[in-house]
């Protein structure tokens, strides 16, 4: 028996642009999300590289830079730099990281993990994607009209004064917010209502718990940034005097309303990443995950705690001393569930039968990177140290370790994990791992020096800096380019697998026990005729390696155990 791609699957059951653009199939929407997010990631990445080029040396020639970037000279490189870091941040946050795992991988994998035919609201799901596209169009409009130089946070009063395309960008972010809300709503209802017979809450794969916790935040917090941006837009257009100090308004209020969402949003980015890592570590250690319940509960706990700590972004913004102290103290509460997760991951590795496939490389990278990102967060949550470190490169390095090092690395790991299921092909492990290694090294080289520069006082968001920071910035820029090279190699490994002679993927190349690996690769249009029977998501005894298939198959029912028999007789769709 050899692997053959099934004749009819979701990729070829319908053809043409319309069949994709108007599809209701969660798998197709997931793929379109994935490629859209990757496209936005490349755009945001280009801006990141432009930022690092400007900062590679101090006192970069002013006129030369403007010419180098090919932008109008009257903007001036300092202004240009403001546009670059703003667009980098806004694109990466709103277009890439927030939809990255929940919308792209969540859409693709979540219904299959439930043995369901689709999400609860397929039309709403398509609408979410179309909203994402509209939001992206507004961002592109902002980019090609007057640009954006407020920073991704749109702080008043500057965002009310600048003559750049703030309204386009806030409208785009508003629309993207609703895209995110509807995705979260869809996932929440799907998890509640479409779980198959026998899948109790505590038999769900941890990825589902993570997406569930994320959905709570998306539903409860994202509308608040919607209203914050709407208020900002109306303030700019009509002048209602809520945020604008020249009308008697209160800019600190904007920060409160903004961070009420944007702090929980950090967990919209990182919780799904934690879910992916939990899946990867359990499956590639071939061992039930350690402390299943504590990981599940810690996801929900993080979601809840994330709502009561937003003020730690505002320690130096005019927030009162009393509230500063309270927020600083409460911030530490988030560290507890985060640490529980890392502890459980490491305990899962212990005495596991670890196979170092590409997704596992990303998962292991995330443990390291999230460890650093999380622990440096404690210093920033501490009021005293934060006053010194606030708005320095220490903060920049910290949140890149969390957002890129955890969220993006987990996203890429997830893409490599589900790629055989998405396209029914295996990629070249050597090329893929090379990309991972280079990206990992590049990432650390980029951001570790920034911790040092920041702690020595280099402020963020400046287009130039004192000579003493030159070497940190030089190595950081070299690291950024290395990271870029690594990511390009990773993308090449994926694209290469689709071209030329394809290596067909088995239904279950990794030996995972979750239901998504029980249909063919790629899956049929409706995934399953009936949800397969469910047992523990990490009971790796239920599958075993089959040399002919080059993949895993359910354990033969004659072995006697009734559970195994059930698993074995599961009809593969």
């Amino acid at each position, binding site marked *: 028996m050899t692997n053959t791609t099934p004749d009819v699957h979701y990729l070829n059951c319908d053809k043409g642009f319309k069949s994709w653009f108007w599809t209701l199939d969660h798998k197709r929407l997931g793929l379109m999300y994935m490629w859209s997010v990757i496209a936005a990631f490349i755009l945001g990445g280009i801006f990141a590289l432009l930022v690092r080029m400007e900062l590679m040396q101090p006192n970069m020639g002013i006129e030369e830079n403007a010419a180098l970037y090919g932008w109008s000279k009257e903007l001036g490189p300092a202004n240009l730099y403001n546009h670059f870091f703003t667009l980098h941040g806004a694109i990466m946050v709103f277009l890439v990281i927030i939809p990255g795992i929940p919308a792209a991988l969540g859409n693709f994998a979540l219904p299959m993990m439930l043995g*369901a*035919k*689709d*999400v*609860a*609201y*397929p039309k*709403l799901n398509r609408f979410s994607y179309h909203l994402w596209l509209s939001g992206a169009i507004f961002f592109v409009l902002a980019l090609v009209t007057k640009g954006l130089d407020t920073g991704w946070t749109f702080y008043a009063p500057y965002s009310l004064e600048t003559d750049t395309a703030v309204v386009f960008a806030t409208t785009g972010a508003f629309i993207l917010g609703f895209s995110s*809300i509807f995705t979260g*709503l*869809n996932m*929440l*209802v799907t998890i*509640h*209502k*479409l779980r198959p*017979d026998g899948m109790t809450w505590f038999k769900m794969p941890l990825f589902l718990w993570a997406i569930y916790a994320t959905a709570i935040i998306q*539903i*409860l*917090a*994202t*509308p*608040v940034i*919607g*209203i*914050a941006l*709407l*208020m900002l837009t*109306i*303030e700019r257009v*009509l*002048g*209602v*005097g*809520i945020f*604008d100090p*020249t*009308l*008697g*308004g*209160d800019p600190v*209020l904007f920060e*409160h*309303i903004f961070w*009420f969402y944007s702090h929980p949003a950090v967990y919209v980015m990182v919780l799904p990443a934690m879910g992916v890592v939990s899946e990867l570590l359990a499956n590639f250690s071939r061992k039930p995950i350690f402390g299943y319940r504590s990981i599940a509960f810690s996801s929900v706990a993080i979601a809840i705690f994330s709502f009561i700590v937003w003020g730690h972004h505002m320690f130096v913004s005019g927030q009162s001393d009393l509230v500063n102290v309270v927020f600083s103290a409460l911030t530490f509460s988030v560290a507890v569930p985060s640490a529980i997760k890392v502890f459980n991951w490491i305990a899962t590795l212990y005495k596991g039968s670890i196979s170092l496939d590409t997704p596992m490389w990303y998962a292991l990278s995330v443990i390291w990177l999230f460890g650093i990102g999380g622990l440096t967060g404690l210093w920033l949550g501490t009021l005293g140290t934060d006053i010194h470190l606030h708005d320095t490169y220490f903060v920049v390095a910290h949140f890149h370790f969390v957002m890129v090092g955890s969220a993006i690395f987990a996203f890429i790991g997830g893409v490599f994990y589900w790629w055989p299921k998405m396209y029914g092909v295996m990629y070249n492990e050597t090329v893929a791992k090379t990309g991972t290694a280079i990206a990992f090294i590049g990432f650390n080289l980029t951001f570790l020096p920034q911790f040092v520069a920041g702690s020595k006082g280099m402020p963020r968001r400046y287009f130039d800096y004192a000579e003493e920071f030159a070497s940190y910035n030089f190595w950081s820029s070299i690291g950024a380019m290395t990271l870029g090279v690594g990511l390009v190699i990773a993308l090449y490994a994926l694209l290469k697998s689709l071209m030329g002679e394809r290596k067909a993927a088995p239904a279950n190349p990794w030996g995972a026990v979750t239901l998504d690996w029980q249909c063919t690769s790629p899956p049929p249009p*409706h995934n*399953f*005729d*009936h949800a397969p029977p469910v047992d523990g998501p990490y009971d790796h005894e239920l599958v075993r390696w089959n040399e002919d298939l080059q993949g895993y198959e359910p354990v033969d029912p004659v072995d006697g155990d009734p559970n195994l028999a059930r698993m074995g007789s599961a009809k593969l769709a």
Partner: protein
Amino acid sequence: MTTASADAPGHDDDHGHGHDHPKHLAHHFDTLEQQFGSSKLGMWAFLLTEVLFFSGLFVAYATLRANNSEVFSYASSFLDTKWGAINTVVLLISSFTAAMSVRNAQLGETSKLKRNLIITLICAGGFMGIKYVEYSHKWHAGLLPPGLENSMFNPETPWIPEAGHHDTDYLNLQRDTMDMAPAERVHFMTTLGRFFGVYFFLTGLHGVHVLIGMGVISWLILRTSRGEFGPDNFTAVDLVALYWHLVDLVWIFLFPLLYLIA
């Protein structure tokens, strides 16, 4: 499958989406209960989103009011309690007819359903009509957010009415601020301006929700005319009614907060 759904109509052991699937059941659900429950849960999740969406504005209102309660009491005297109260009654009645519509749909009383939906729509239209009367009065009297040209609170070039022409509110304000110290008067006037900023924003956003509600209620009326609703298929009526009640809930708080704080 749960025991409750195992004997439900359309449950089908051989093919997932076979020919005896009920008419109103989408292919990815097993039973009508599951589909109905999903719709309800999704709508409630959306309502939570709406609650938090409005919360940002309520926070803006609350902080402004907490720091300037005297000015706010004064400001609400510019609003006409009579119109606010009438609008509250109109909206409560529409909420009642919306709840009745759900009952009618559940019982398959199509003509009553249509009548109740039309009353709901008329009440919603009446609400917006009264809002229009209130807005246009304030527009002419210069009681507007401070950023607008024709606002008497504009900090650059305050609008000044012509004598005898929509100048009652202005003259009252002129009289009441006459004896204030300069800094106090500046604070008073800018705070009043912000009150009207918040007032128009809150009522405007609520009004947009009413308009959206009118749109979906019209859609329900159209579908009722086609005889689509009945005991097996009333989810759309139920969900729109839930939305409409939320719009009502927001107004239940807006009315005392804006009109009754004198």
